């Protein structure tokens, strides 16, 4: 008997015997079915919810601060400090973009129908998982703004050579860092050590596995299209 026939026979014998000796735990099954199936939103891990909530609160505080700045400047008849205003406004816009994208992806993942064919479902799930990389890429674009919000015309006017050097150096590093992260936080770099350190031990394994799955599915898709 060839090995494949042997393996199939083994599996068949095991399956038949297994059917006799296992049973669904009816009591647990009924309890499980009677659980109110939580809404997709409740299934999100609390820390992810905190992240979304934190983003929304920050935006709220930021808008309140901007309104305060404008009102105060008008009441005092003074010009608005545009360095602060624009830095904060852009930072809030980036945070809003990143937070909305994060929430959108999380909701999409939980709405994927699992009774659709495996390859299509897994491709969508894993693509959504990996596309969450867009969120840190976007959020880190704000780094340079953290080197400009404190500037004021009078501070700039009084800058010494050292002051200018430090300011430009800080801004330059922030711009470079934000550009570097934007171009390097990509699926292709998931296996690198710095990526692992950056994303930590909870997110990185999920991203790495999603990326592996996508590779396998893309290979399958290539074979499918090649026929």
């Amino acid at each position: 008997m060839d090995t494949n026939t042997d393996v199939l026979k083994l599996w068949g014998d095991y399956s038949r015997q297994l059917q006799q000796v296992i049973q669904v735990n009816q009591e647990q099954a009924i309890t499980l079915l009677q659980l109110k199936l939580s809404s997709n939103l409740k299934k999100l891990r609390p820390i992810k919810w905190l992240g979304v909530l934190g983003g929304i609160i920050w935006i709220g505080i930021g808008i309140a601060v901007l309104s305060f700045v404008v009102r105060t400047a008008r009441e005092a008849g003074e010009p608005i400090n545009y360095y602060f205003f624009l830095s904060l406004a852009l930072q809030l816009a980036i945070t809003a973009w990143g937070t909305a994208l994060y929430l959108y992806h999380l909701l999409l993942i939980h709405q994927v129908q699992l009774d659709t064919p495996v390859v299509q479902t897994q491709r969508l799930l894993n693509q959504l998982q990996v596309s969450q990389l867009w969120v840190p890429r976007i959020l880190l674009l704000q780094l340079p703004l953290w080197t400009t919000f404190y500037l004021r015309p009078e501070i700039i006017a009084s800058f010494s050579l050292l002051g200018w050097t430090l300011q430009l150096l800080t801004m330059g590093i922030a711009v470079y860092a934000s550009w570097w992260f934007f171009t390097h936080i990509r699926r292709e770099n998931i296996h690198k050590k710095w990526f692992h350190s950056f994303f930590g031990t909870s997110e990185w394994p999920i991203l790495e596995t999603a990326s592996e799955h996508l590779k396998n599915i893309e290979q399958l898709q290539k074979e499918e299209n090649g026929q």
Partner: protein
Amino acid sequence: MEELQNKFLTVLEAHKGILFKVANAYQQNQEERSDLMQEMTLQLWKSFKNYNGSVRYSTWIYRIVLNVAISYYRREQTRKKHVITKPVDFIHYITDDTNIDQEIKQRMAVLNNCIRAFNSIDRALVLLFLDDKPQAEIAQVMGISVTNVSTRLYRIRQKLAKAFQHE
């Protein structure tokens, strides 16, 4: 609702082997396996109301349980526990498993190791092949062409035979 529930439990009981074998192929740890089978059951129940008979029960069940098993890595370590928190297997042995032939058990342990060596997608194909599903049904479950199933299975069968012999 109770009628639907009873119908679902009947279907589940008839196909319990699929859940058990798929969970066993994707999770070696007993507690994870038990949790995986609970998740499979929940997802099956969620989709059961929309089941329209356009595919066979086995095809429908395989799609869902394989999708759940393959995606299981995404479940957070601090996942929300359901009400059932006892470390009891959701699908359990009604007698102990000494009623399964010892030699079969030993050889199955070897075969399961060989199965787990495949990547998640090919593992699904292996399970469907071992359950003697026709290639047309495998194609329906996986969402790929019959030709692709045939090509993949040819390679998988060779790899599986080699691994099993080697072990």
